[in-house]
């Protein structure tokens, strides 16, 4: 294909815009990383942009020495692993039978699940349910209410349905049971979409803090995001308000806040590139067929 002069300008323009957009996505993270690695003096005199000034790892050392921060981190890692495992098992258990068109009661179950995507009891009835089940201040308050995401369930069901039926039929001829087919044939063929959904469940749990805010009052069971909220946002807010003449609490150094935020972000930044190709293919499946 021949490219005209106008085309070249258009190409340049597109590259420029995409580059700018990418930078906009990176700059806040880079700035935060730089702040976390700079000295407080440099931060206060506004010298830090996207490169650390007067390199200092003091903030990280302080954060790493904080036992509560570590407890929170380990609790959250355990929570995410448990949550993702249970979510995936439950979602698979629901998705597979629902692909069987001949299954009696299938349409009813599907309808029941789809309805929950459009209507829900709302915050307060859910809150009262968790309370009356005596789940508050237990890890289960953060696991059980969100065990199955109806949308992910539909994505998985769609994927299962797209697998060739002949494979399952031949296995059935050989006397394989439903569960045998699921475990030995269907699941191994679904690894990309399973990886994608696991990632979504895991990231959702890692990032979520609303339910913890509602159900967890025991400081030892604060997931990392709630801990951060307490440490950074409430504090930032009082800082921001202090300038408007409202009261401020004891300020935490900026570099400490930044280091704490980075502390909770780094795990995501570490796993993200490795899982990227899975979630793109997984999303495509959901997008094109869903």
């Amino acid at each position, binding site marked *: 294909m021949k490219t005209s002069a106008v*085309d070249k300008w*258009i*190409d340049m323009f*597109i590259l420029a*815009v*995409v580059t700018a*957009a*990418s930078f906009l*996505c*990176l700059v*806040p*993270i880079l*700035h*935060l990383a730089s*702040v976390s690695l700079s000295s407080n003096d440099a931060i206060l005199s*506004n010298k*830090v942009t996207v490169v650390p000034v007067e390199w200092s790892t003091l903030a990280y050392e302080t954060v790493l020495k904080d036992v509560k921060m570590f407890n929170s981190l380990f609790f959250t890692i355990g929570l995410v692993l448990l949550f993702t495992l249970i979510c995936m098992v*439950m*979602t698979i258990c*629901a998705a*597979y*039978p629902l692909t*069987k068109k001949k*299954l*009696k009661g299938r349409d009813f*179950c599907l309808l*029941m699940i789809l309805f929950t995507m459009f*209507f*829900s*009891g*709302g*915050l*307060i*009835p*859910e*809150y*009262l*349910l968790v309370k009356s089940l005596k789940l508050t201040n237990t890890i289960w308050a953060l696991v059980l*209410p969100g065990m*199955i995401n109806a949308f992910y369930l539909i994505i998985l069901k769609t994927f299962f349905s797209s697998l060739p039926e002949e494979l399952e039929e031949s296995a059935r001829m050989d006397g394989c049971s439903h569960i045998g087919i699921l475990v030995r044939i269907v699941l191994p063929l679904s690894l990309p979409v399973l990886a994608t959904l696991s990632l979504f469940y895991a990231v959702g749990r*890692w*990032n979520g803090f*609303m339910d913890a805010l*509602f159900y967890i009052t025991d400081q030892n069971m604060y997931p990392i995001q709630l801990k*951060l909220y307490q440490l*950074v946002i409430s504090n*930032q807010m009082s*800082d*921001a308000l202090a*300038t408007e003449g*409202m009261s401020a609490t004891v300020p935490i150094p900026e570099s400490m806040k930044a280091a704490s*935020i980075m502390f909770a972000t780094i795990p*995501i*930044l570490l796993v993200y*590139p490795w899982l*990227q190709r899975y979630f*793109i293919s997984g*999303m495509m499946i959901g*997008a*094109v067929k869903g």
Partner: protein
Amino acid sequence: MHGERPAVPETALSAESIAPVSVSKRRRPAWVQDWQLYALLALPMLYFLVFKYIPMYGVTIAFKEFNIFEGIWSSPWAGLDAFREIFAMQDFYKVLRNTFLLNLLDLAVSFPAPILLALLLNEVRIPWFKKGAQTVLYLPHFISWVIIGGMVYQLLSTNTGLVNHLLKVSGIGAIPFLTEPSYWIMTYVGTGVWQNAGWGTIIYLAALTGINKELYEAADVDGAGRLRKIWSITLPSIKPTIMILLIINIGHMASIGFERPFVLSNPLVTDVSDVISTFVYKVGVQSARFSIATAIGLFQAVVGLIFLLASNYISKKVTDQGIW
């Protein structure tokens, strides 16, 4: 079938050949044969019953004088008292207005952003650059609102924020992004674009890969330029995807996430930052006025359902696209 063997009496046939077969060879009932499937489905359905349908029953406390010690079942009915009370609340109209205002602005700005970005990415002809840009653009979606909140304060606060420092140095002067209501709305909408514009492109890029390449070749022969091809081929091809996402978005007009307004808000901007979800939290969880908070939640759910049904209906009439 019976007609083929008229010599044998009806009764003899049914007694001798059918009855024994029904015991040994007839297929077992479906639910016995598929018991494993039902066993797999049992726990998930129990989950939906307990954690989705019991709360739906729980909305009855909007019509009761709820007493936490008596429970939902035995609390006395109160009719529409809770609804009368919320419709008399000034704050209720405020949070209703804010919810619609923020959602509407979000729709106006955050909805077109991924479409534009996807069209641009689609025109990038250097594969490694496209991949790299996508990696970076998807990243914000994986960052929590707490962390985004932290970044926003780091970057935008009036005194210590980097952006305001640069604005001051360049002579424009500081802008109260977080403490002045009109600017706060901009910040709110902006963070939404930041988190989701890149991620939103995935679905459009998927739709774009499905376009028949021959259409472009035909357009080349006809001498169409790039913009012409985008306008006449690319956009019409992803129109169904755009429409479906638009319906879903309009359908969610009455509902709003909790974490984003909660994290970004502060006492100086509550006039615009208090929305239904944060209001329900304040009234219900913090003040323990359960019936009132449930009534607000129910109002929101019903209005949301009406929006969803209406937008789907209109879209089906106008464009033949619908989510069901």
